[in-house]
């Protein structure tokens, strides 16, 4: 399958620090691609260069065959961006937020349809400031998809959410993939990467140190003779939490 995104030898320098140091990878159509790494590894910078937000120092990023630094305006129609902490102007109703984002692309849409996609239709006429963290994330996702992008970027989308909201967001991201959209996300949660991502790139000090499917990465580690010290239970504490409190979303204010 043809690659939706081609990143070749991408570089970014901030003063003395080589934030991104010649990374290359490709993302296929309809794939969830995870970028993992400790803080300061260069994940967000990489994402921002791909999103046209930061000038690229060296190398190229091509999305659907278009070079990001050559035609950023065209790229903006192809991508949807979910920021780390979604924020909206207050005193604005949810339908108006969707309408405005669609208008930014010159599109006229039915806002209710997009709110229904993320189960926010009941909140359609509320102001954004009445939303919980998880609801804001969902609103943000739907506003990033109003123009039918081919690539969807998410920067640490589940940070600060409760386990129910997290799982709900995973389902949403999988639905986005099902539409054939390529998803690129960063996360600090390994379980999230394992469940969601088709492939993972692990970054450290501006370089990609490993890139493969989660399964293969684990197999490779085991082949090198790694074994956990502790005996692994068949369930973990999160399983207990979900079993006790259920999967239902808690949006109550």
């Amino acid at each position, binding site marked *: 399958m043809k690659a939706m995104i081609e990143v070749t030898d991408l570089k970014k320098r901030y003063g003395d620090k080589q934030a991104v140091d010649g990374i290359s990878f490709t993302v296929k159509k309809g794939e969830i691609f995870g970028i993992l790494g400790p803080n300061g590894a260069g994940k967000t910078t990489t994402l921002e260069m791909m999103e*046209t937000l930061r000038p690229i120092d060296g190398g190229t990023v091509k999305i659907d065959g278009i070079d990001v630094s050559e035609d950023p305006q065209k790229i903006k129609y192809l991508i949807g961006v979910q920021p780390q902490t979604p*924020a909206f*102007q207050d005193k604005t109703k949810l339908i108006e937020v969707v309408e*405005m984002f669609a208008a930014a692309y*010159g599109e006229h849409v039915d806002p209710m349809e997009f709110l229904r996609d993320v189960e926010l239709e009941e909140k359609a006429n509320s102001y954004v400031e009445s939303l919980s963290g998880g609801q804001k994330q969902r609103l943000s996702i739907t506003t990033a998809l109003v123009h039918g992008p081919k690539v969807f970027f998410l920067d640490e989308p589940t940070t600060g959410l409760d386990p129910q909201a997290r799982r709900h967001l995973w389902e949403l991201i999988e639905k986005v993939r099902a539409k054939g959209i390529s998803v690129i996300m960063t996360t600090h949660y390994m379980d999230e990467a394992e469940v969601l991502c088709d492939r993972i790139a692990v970054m450290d000090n501006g370089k990609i140190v490993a890139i493969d499917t989660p399964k293969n990465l684990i197999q490779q580690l085991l082949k090198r003779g790694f074994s956990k010290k502790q005996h692994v239970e068949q369930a973990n504490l999160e399983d207990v939490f979900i079993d006790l409190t259920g999967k239902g979303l808690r949006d109550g204010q």
Partner: protein
Amino acid sequence: MKRSLYTVATFVKINTRRFFRDKLALFFSMGFPLIFLFVFGSLNSGNKNVSFNVAVINQSDSSFAKEFAKSASDNKVLKVNKDITTLDAAKEKMNKSELDATIVLPKDFGDVQKGSKTPSGQAEIVYTKNNEQSGQALSSVLQAQFKQINAKFVNVQEPFTVKTNELNEKSLSAFDYTFAGLLGFSIIGMGIFGPVNVFPELKKMGILRRLSTTPLRVWQYFLSTMIGQAIIGLISLTAMFIVAILVFHLQVVGNYFELGLFLVLGIITILGIGLALGGWAKNERQAAPLSNIIVFPMMFLSGTFFPRFLMPDWLQNLSGLLPLTPIIDGIRLIATEGKHLVDIAPQLGLIGIWLVVIYFIAFRVFRWE
């Protein structure tokens, strides 16, 4: 192009609705200038009738003196404080400047002197050094009054007299100047303090950054802000005109359509300064000091709170070049002097130059984050 303008129209529609939901923004852009209008308007309309706060100390028993003291309190120019009956009490009040002067009618005032058929006397005006002007003005007022009385007693043919002749042409009152200045103040409040407060906040929350990942262009964002501001500004300024006309008897002689056009031009020009400052500043700490440095001198030098003709010549020439000055002058020329847009070409030209310069800078320095 049609799609670009749909974008602008949608942003205008939703942001204008937002504005009317925000009580605090409503107060600062509509209520606040109205309060200023009431305060400054009352101060100015009080100045129209000059009057003196005086005490009349009558030490004479003559019927003429009683009559004279009574007529003094009927005089429109004099505000007689009737609680004061002794000179000492009057002196104390004058030292506090609560009284401008005291009229003393001495013991023999109004008595008919020997060898004369008519009453005579000399009134005394007592004032403190601080109130020299009031004292002298009051003495002219009394002298004029005595002249009328004298004419009744003695028939004299006066060779030289003065006749007053009031022109029908309407002259500018102090309120006309104040009002144009207050409109300028309101335009600054909305156009500069609005964006300067809002933009850094939007940047801090990452809202502008999020918008910058969409194809939205800076010109579309600016244009939508300009249209929204023009709508809100016209509503606010109309409210001020209504109050000025109903409460302070402002007479608008100019063409309302031309006035509206000119106000929109002024609003958009000044908004450009706010867009440049707010668009450039990364945070409130950058925005606040810079906007104060620009706004306060401009506010005072352009004649917002007091007319520019009170300034020394060199300062008048300098402040005449500021962007707000032709706006305030133009408003006054159209609204109260009935000039047309063609008549105020110099003002329009200066505003035009500033408009280009300001927006050139605003587009250059704008940052999404």
